[in-house]
């Protein structure tokens, strides 16, 4: 290898990008390998009307059986499922949604930027289930404080313990009158609300907010199209000594030194797959690949209409905008429900209800769509999923990807705790919309399949006890001191909050720990 580097980083999304950003600013020379290409936003895309697409927006049938987010417009951005297979039991469908390009999923994320709280970090203390994280909110807060300004997170400070306030661009926007009515209904039913907290800007990705700064230090080398297949340990020390990767285009295999440390941020399941394919590296606890979870979504748990807006009669300022309802269930230790933990909602005003919700056809349907144009109010549930030992992934030795790398078999199902939570969320959403005077068109509690929320977490969890966890409190493998895993696989629990902000904070914290340990010559 011609390039001189001290730390090798696998992946360039939130985890890998932040590791590179932090380490290079501390003067550490890094090599970043990413499995995908760099998207050139000028060359690789063009504005098109949907009628100019060969399939009128339906997309090529059968191309993405598991990626419901893929449209015909952006189909070429999502990972090809045929080239990159994975397996699951027939009655346990898992929707693994992947992107392989510089920046990873941060080029497509929804940008919701919530902090976790001690309701998550110390969850076992609260309700007795699972394990506590080896860190508390106090440990991570200073890193959230530094991440939010980089991503220019907008929001409103509320003082809610379950979603701690941060360093926000103040959101002073006024609410539409339909949203005001909804907020009043929430207040009367003791349900908390706030503005969305989002990273701002048109992209807000690792590729424009992290990697350019890292490159500017002169300490970062980025190699795209490098599919890391295995980390090889030194036979004497057990430390990572080499990394094997395959060029995505030519399929040539390469082997390079691991440097003084390896940071894995390939996305939760890919990082676990890499460690499993590396002779189950770091798995003395037997928990590698275990305690998988995500967040369940009930999309459009309720779809309602604002009656006063029908027929285009909405006065200016009635429709539009939205907000967020943070977890409000089981915040008190003595709350008695059919489930533990809780859920959150996104809600929004505007748009037209889907035609499928209107039990009509022909001219009556077209008239109704006109009547309801712009009147919709919808809510989506995001619920906490419990990390369970039986939710796991292993290597399926019979299936390999197009580059010969063994694939994953994923086993993850939802259980009664999630089902009861989803049902409760439907009833509450219905009551809130009716309380606001909206007409409810539909309600349901059917969760999307595991994985579809694209918030896959766990599988390589942190912990203080090496017998129950893979990583220590700084995302370092208990077993292999020069390997860190800083993406969502390190989560011990996840709450209902979108995980990216926490991945960024964890990765920044871990990177600083690497630099300190390197200085002390501990790695």
């Amino acid at each position: 290898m011609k390039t001189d580097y001290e730390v090798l980083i696998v992946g360039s999304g939130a985890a890998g990008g932040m590791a590179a950003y932090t380490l290079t600013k501390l003067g550490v020379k890094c090599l970043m390998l990413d499995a995908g290409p760099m998207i050139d936003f000028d060359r690789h895309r063009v504005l098109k009307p949907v009628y100019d697409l060969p399939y009128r927006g339906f997309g090529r049938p059968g191309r993405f059986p598991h990626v419901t987010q893929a449209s015909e417009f952006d189909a070429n951005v999502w990972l090809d499922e045929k080239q990159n297979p994975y397996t699951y039991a027939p009655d346990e469908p898992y929707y693994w949604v992947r992107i392989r390009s510089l920046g990873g999923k941060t080029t497509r994320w929804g940008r919701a930027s919530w902090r976790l709280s001690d309701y998550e970090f110390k969850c076992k203390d609260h309700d007795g289930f699972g394990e506590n994280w080896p860190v508390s909110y106090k440990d991570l807060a200073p890193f959230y404080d530094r991440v939010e300004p980089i991503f220019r997170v907008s929001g409103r400070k509320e003082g809610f313990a379950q979603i701690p306030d941060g360093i926000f661009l103040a959101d002073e926007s006024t609410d539409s009158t339909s949203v005001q009515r909804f907020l009043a209904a929430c207040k009367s039913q003791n349900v908390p609300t706030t503005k969305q907290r989002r990273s701002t800007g048109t992209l807000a990705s690792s590729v424009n907010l992290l990697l350019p700064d890292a490159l500017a230090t002169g300490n970062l080398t980025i190699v795209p199209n490098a599919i890391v297949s295995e980390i090889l340990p030194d036979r004497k020390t057990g430390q990572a000594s080499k990394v094997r990767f395959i060029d995505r285009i030519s399929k040539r295999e390469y082997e390079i030194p691991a440097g003084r440390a390896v940071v894995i941020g390939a996305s939760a399941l890919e990082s676990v797959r890499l460690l499993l394919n590396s002779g189950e590296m770091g798995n003395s606890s037997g928990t590698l690949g275990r305690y998988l979870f995500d967040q369940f979504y009930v999309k459009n748990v309720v779809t309602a209409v604002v009656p006063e807006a029908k027929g285009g009669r909405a006065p200016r300022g009635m429709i539009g905008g939205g907000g967020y309802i943070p977890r409000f269930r089981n915040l008190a230790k003595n709350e008695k429900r059919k489930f533990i933990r809780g859920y959150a909602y996104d809600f929004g005003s505007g748009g037209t209800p889907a035609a499928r919700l209107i039990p009509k056809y022909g001219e009556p349907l077209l008239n109704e769509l006109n009547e309801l144009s712009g009147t919709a109010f919808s809510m989506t549930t995001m619920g906490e999923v419990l990390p369970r030992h039986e939710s796991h992934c292993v290597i399926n030795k019979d299936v390999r990807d197009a580059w010969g790398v063994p694939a994953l078999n994923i086993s993850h199902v939802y259980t009664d705790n999630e089902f009861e939570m989803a049902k409760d969320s439907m009833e509450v959403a219905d009551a809130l919309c009716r309380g606001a005077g909206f007409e409810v068109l539909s309600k349901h509690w059917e969760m999307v399949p595991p994985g579809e929320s694209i918030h896959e977490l766990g599988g390589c969890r942190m912990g203080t006890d090496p017998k129950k966890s893979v990583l220590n409190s700084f995302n370092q493998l208990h077993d292999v001191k020069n390997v860190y895993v800083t993406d969502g696989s390190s989560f011990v629990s996840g709450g209902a909050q979108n995980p990216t902000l926490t991945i960024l904070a964890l990765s920044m914290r871990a990177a600083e720990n690497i630099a300190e340990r390197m200085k002390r010559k501990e790695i």
Partner: protein
Amino acid sequence: MKRRDWLRNAITAPVGAAAVAAAGAAQQQQAAAQTPPPTNSDTPKLALTNVDAIGAPNSERFFAPGEFQALEALAKTLLPAYNGRPGAVEAGVPEFLDFLLSQSPAERQELYHDGLRALSAAGFATMDAVGQKKILAPLEQPWTYAAPKDPLAQFLRVAKDDIIQATFNSREWAASSKTRTSGGTSYYYFTIE
């Protein structure tokens, strides 16, 4: 006619290939007279026309004649031309769905085959509005997240969604709209090696 207007018409109007060619030749002559000749170093930026704008594909039908006839009747009933907007038939939806289903997974093909055969057997295409209303009764039931158990009701629900999406996303629907973005405009990503 301004070049910009002509180009827009050429791209959006579903006219015959001969008419496009004739108008194009005249326009090229006019444009050539107005603009300086290109040099051999210019990077070409040519205005192109989408294949669907110049005519219908000449392909064999996926659906049997009876099935296709039922699909046409269903499309016309579920989404008729109305209020200056094209209906599903005017938007070429039966032909489009015939093409789409020819490439769809087997399960979807079976759903359509079974549903259309049932409609065909019932004489849906030739029956009066009262008879059709009876068959389409499941579409007047309140929507539930769980799919109905009756296979025909399942098919009707899927077909309604498909017919509406294919119509609203059609060139004809956009052409009848007052806004240029009707039907949706977004970034299309090319294949990235």
